[in-house]
């Protein structure tokens, strides 16, 4: 860097103060754009991390999810959905040698739960003793229930961290009694904290009880809402799903062309869904944020052009005292870049701060992302440069004798 260049850099910072209003407007433009971009990318990163973790934990590569009702991935059975019973699915699974483990599921949402002196609502899941393995969830305190508890409809419950906090505060919940609906259960274990899942649901506000206990004692039904099947060989997941589909259609006597009254979800479909979400997170949302940067860039360019017109005399004088055209061009480029980068840095701080707030508010987990920082700084530098080029060139092209007139 030549002496003049170094001196011009320092000089451009003084221009921030000399043209306070213009600098403020320019900075605001890049601040808003970079804030939006940083926020979107950071939160997107956090959401993606969360989603992938959820998918990995709940839906390893070699699993098949069977849900009653056709058409949608998540949600309760639709009208006209097939009734699935434990025995029926057990019978089907026996015909599928590829399945190494499976877990049936039934559930209730927003169920009031009481303990001595406290009340909360929770999602109640009835599962088999195989849920730890199949759903990849574990019990961190106490013991999970066993096959005998499921066979005997034992009134034992495993509670999530949110439930434990709501009902027992800091006290030890193990061995305590809770009441789900009108049925009393004994807390035998604490579930490993999970956080929020991809749907924004707090998976720690859950209680897992033996499936049969939930069916017979709480809900008075004999159906299950779905099941998760683990396939031994990841390569055969699709084949197994196809076989299961054929078996189910045959059992439900569905004519060809009639839609499924159940839904099968495999890793392939989940991957597709994840891909769609990622496109929204990292293409569509950043594009929307980038629009504000483009607007900021156009505003900056026109403000700088106006500044050049207003400072023709100054440009002429600078040429007279020895500035080369390039020095003049560099000066205006630097003035634009410094303001734009300044706004960008502020926007980066604001965006990361907002992202941090969003992460806490929506329990997203870590949202700090290098991509967001690089993108934010890069975007503000680029807008500054782009906005500065035309004004700087115009300034450099002025003939000194005309500019001084």
């Amino acid at each position, binding site marked *: 860097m*030549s*002496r*003049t260049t170094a*001196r*011009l850099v320092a*000089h451009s910072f*003084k221009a921030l*103060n*000399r043209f306070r209003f213009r600098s403020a407007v320019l900075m605001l433009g890049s601040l808003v754009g970079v804030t939006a971009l940083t926020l979107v990318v950071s939160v997107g990163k956090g959401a993606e991390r969360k989603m992938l973790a959820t998918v990995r934990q709940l839906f390893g590569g070699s699993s098949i999810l069977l849900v009653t009702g056709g058409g949608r991935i998540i949600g309760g059975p639709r009208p006209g959905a097939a009734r699935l019973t434990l025995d029926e699915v057990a019978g089907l699974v026996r015909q599928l040698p590829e399945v190494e483990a499976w877990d049936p599921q039934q559930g209730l949402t927003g169920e009031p739960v009481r303990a001595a002196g406290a009340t909360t609502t929770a999602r109640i899941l009835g599962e088999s003793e195989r849920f730890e393995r199949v759903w990849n969830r574990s019990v961190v305190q106490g013991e999970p229930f066993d096959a005998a508890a499921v066979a005997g409809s034992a009134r034992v419950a495993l509670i999530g961290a949110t439930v434990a906090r709501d009902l027992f505060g800091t006290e030890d919940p193990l061995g305590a009694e809770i009441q789900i609906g009108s049925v009393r259960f004994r807390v035998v274990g604490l579930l490993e904290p999970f956080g929020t899942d991809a749907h924004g649901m707090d998976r720690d506000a859950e209680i897992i009880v033996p499936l049969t206990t939930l069916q017979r004692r709480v809900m008075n039904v004999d159906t299950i809402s779905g099941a998760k099947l683990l396939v031994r060989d990841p390569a055969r997941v699709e084949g197994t799903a196809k076989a299961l589909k054929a078996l189910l259609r045959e059992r439900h006597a569905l004519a060809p062309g009639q839609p499924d009254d159940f839904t099968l979800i495999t890793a392939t479909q989940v991957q597709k869904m994840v891909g769609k979400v990622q496109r929204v997170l990292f293409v569509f949302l950043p594009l929307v944020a980038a629009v504000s940067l483009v607007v900021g860039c156009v505003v900056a360019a026109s403000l700088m052009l106006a500044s050049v017109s207003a400072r023709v*005399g*100054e440009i*002429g*004088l*600078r*040429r*007279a*005292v*020895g*500035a*080369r*055209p*390039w*020095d003049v061009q560099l000066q205006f480029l630097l003035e634009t870049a410094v303001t734009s980068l300044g706004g960008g840095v502020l926007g980066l701080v604001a965006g990361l701060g907002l992202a941090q707030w969003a992460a806490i508010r929506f329990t997203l987990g870590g949202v700090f992302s290098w991509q967001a920082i690089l993108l934010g700084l890069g975007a503000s530098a680029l807008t500054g440069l782009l906005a500065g080029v035309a004004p700087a060139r115009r300034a450099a092209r002025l*003939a*000194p*004798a005309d500019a*001084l007139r």
Partner: protein
Amino acid sequence: MIELEGIERTYHRPGGAPVRALREISLRIERGEFLAVVGASGSGKSTLMNVLGLLDRPDAGRYRLDGEDVSQLGIDAQARLRNRRIGFVFQSFHLLPRTSALENVELPLLYSDRASIAGLGRRALEAVGLADRVDHKPSELSGGQQQRVAIARALVNEPDLLLADEPTGNLDEQAAGEIMDIFHTLHAAGRTIVLVTHDPDLAAHCDRICRLEMGRLISDHRRADGRTAAQAEPALLDAQEGA
């Protein structure tokens, strides 16, 4: 020091007849001269100053500065020459607003290749008697003080040649007197000064008066043997008597 030979400059205005601002100007200026260029407005004196200051390129003719032909130098090389060797003083001061006197004076140093520029601006301000005004903004200074800041700026790089275009045109009589005193001091210290003015009283300060009319150099008189240059310049005398 300066040799102009057959300098021509014609402006082509869109939709108008070309204006021949300078015609066949040949002029020698020696080191240490204090010279006035006079003439009515439109006579070409500002164009001459722009050519002398390397702010404008003649269409024909030769401009030698210390023997070197500078009229054909590249834009960047001319900028370097202006920075090192030529100081400008303008009628409208051309100070940067909202910028301290010291920073204004230091502006040419920004484009200088000097390694150390510390103290030069302050020294130049002291030379024009504004040592106590270094931190004042132009808006906090009188017209005369502003022009003194501009002179300090013109001097900060120690140029050989000082070009002043109507330096007192925006000033009252007293401030104008102070500015002319500074020019006399600079002249006495050996600096070459070219003063462009339409004001005969101002030209009367100089040792040599060149008169331009319609782009031509029509007279060139020196102070000699007790007569001032103004006395040797009959047209000027007429103008003074008429005033």
